[in-house]
């Protein structure tokens, strides 16, 4: 307990940055999992790193380089690939390869080379500065607020594109807005926390939350809670055992996911055996304990 308090006293900026990045990325991550587009997360993180590497060579501010390349990639990804002969995943793969190779080649010309790339990819939350936190608040809070405010049309387009279009929702516009928000969040977060931690926040807490609940509101809330737990636990482990911070948080996030697995299995079993969890029983339901599926009527 004392250790945690010391941690809070010594690294308030790191904790605040971790909690904010975790909350935003876990909400956005839930949506990209529902869109079955998780790979987008790691690709955009890699592109953000490439943008920062580009800024070393060109002399533009890292934030500008990272945002520019990320939003450019978002433009490519927002293209409707449904009718295309090349699926979106393939384009993602190509962008990933290009961004990874590009970052390495660009940084190889700087004085630090591979070490610099390593620090960009893995980052270090503990080194977050006040200026970083200001940028994070300025970008992530509006992105998070926008996502929550416009959750209904966003979710409708994810659920059923055709029906959404019929209902008058501009699906292409919402797609673009979502990807732009995601790109902004990843570009800014990756600059402070490193690409791998951003991707960990995008995947592990939402995956754990999706295992536990069947309501979107609860899933989003749980994802935020899990990301906060992972941040605090990871920082604590790092402080206690002198581990590097970001890998410790990543490990904590994955451990939370693994801890949730048996809980989810228990929950499923309980739901399966509890008539109150589903529809009320009637005379045509199978007898209690019978696993036979009720026929269509």
């Amino acid at each position, binding site marked *: 307990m004392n250790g945690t308090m010391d941690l809070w006293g010594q690294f308030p900026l790191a904790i605040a940055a971790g909690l904010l990045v975790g909350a935003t990325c876990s909400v956005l991550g839930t949506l990209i999992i529902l869109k079955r587009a998780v790979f987008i997360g790691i690709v955009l993180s890699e592109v953000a790193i490439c943008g920062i590497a580009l800024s070393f060579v060109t002399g533009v501010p890292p934030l500008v380089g990272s945002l520019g390349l990320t939003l450019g990639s978002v433009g490519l990804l927002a293209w409707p690939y449904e009718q295309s002969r090349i699926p979106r995943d393939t384009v993602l793969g190509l962008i990933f390869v290009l961004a990874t190779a590009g970052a390495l080649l660009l940084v190889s010309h700087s004085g630090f080379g591979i070490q610099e790339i390593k620090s960009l990819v893995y980052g270090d939350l503990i080194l977050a500065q006040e200026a970083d936190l200001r940028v994070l608040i300025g970008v992530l809070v509006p992105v998070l607020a926008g996502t929550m405010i416009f959750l209904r049309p966003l979710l409708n387009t994810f659920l059923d594109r055709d029906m959404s279009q019929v209902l008058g929702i501009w699906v292409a516009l919402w797609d673009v807005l979502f990807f732009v928000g995601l790109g902004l969040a990843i570009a800014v977060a990756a600059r402070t926390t490193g690409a791998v931690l951003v991707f960990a926040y995008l995947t592990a807490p939402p995956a754990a939350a999706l295992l536990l609940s069947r309501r*979107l509101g609860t899933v989003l809330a749980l994802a935020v809670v899990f990301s906060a737990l992972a941040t605090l636990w990871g920082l604590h482990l790092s402080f206690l055992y002198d581990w590097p911070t970001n890998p410790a948080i990543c490990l904590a996030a994955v451990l939370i996911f693994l801890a949730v697995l048996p809980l989810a299995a228990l929950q499923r079993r309980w739901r399966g055996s509890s008539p109150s969890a589903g529809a009320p029983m009637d005379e045509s339901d199978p007898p209690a304990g019978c696993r036979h599926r*009720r026929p269509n009527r």
Partner: protein
Amino acid sequence: MDERFAIQCVNLHVAYGRQDVLCGVSLDIPRGVLLPIVGPNGAGKTTLLKAMLGLAPIRKGYVQTPFLFSPPGYVPQQKTIDPIHPVSLLRIVEMGLYPRLGWWKRIGRDERARMQSILDRFGLWAHRHKTFGELSGGMKQKTLLARALSTGAEVLLLDEPTSELDEETEQEILSQLQSLVRERGKTVVLVHHGLHQAARLAPRICWVEYGQVRWMDSADGLQGAGRERARP
């Protein structure tokens, strides 16, 4: 647009890539009728429905509908909503309220009551908290029908809405659609698989073949025409 008609298609050409799917379809669908669209597989029935909805790439011609201001109810051919979504059956049906609620309004008491009556009609109220993945094929189909009705639309476009239902439920749903037309004056356009059943549903049916409307009359007339064509 002529007020007598709910939908007017004029010389409609639709193609996917180089593949022509509809070739010069002209069709006027009057208000307050049930119109089954029938025809062999690959004839262009679903594409015709999608063109009416603005979901198909129209190369030539045009469709006139009131859908910009009052969106229709729609049941797609693919009865799939990704089961990964943590949303209940009730939430899926409430999606039909979007034109009234937009992105900001909360669902009111009246709308809740209406949702309950629609779900009751399909026997789904007791299952309202289940996710789409937990429903049987028939219940999924009923859910999407309930969603089409929840829009409160004057025009319903349904693509094989009973394809996964057993006979008894199919009859029940089809008679509900007939009563919607008779009692509430709704317009129902229905892509259907069986000619004989379609003939029992409505006085006129629309026969689509090779991307064209080949016949728009009673089933008797259609069978007569078929005999004519078959005659050497």
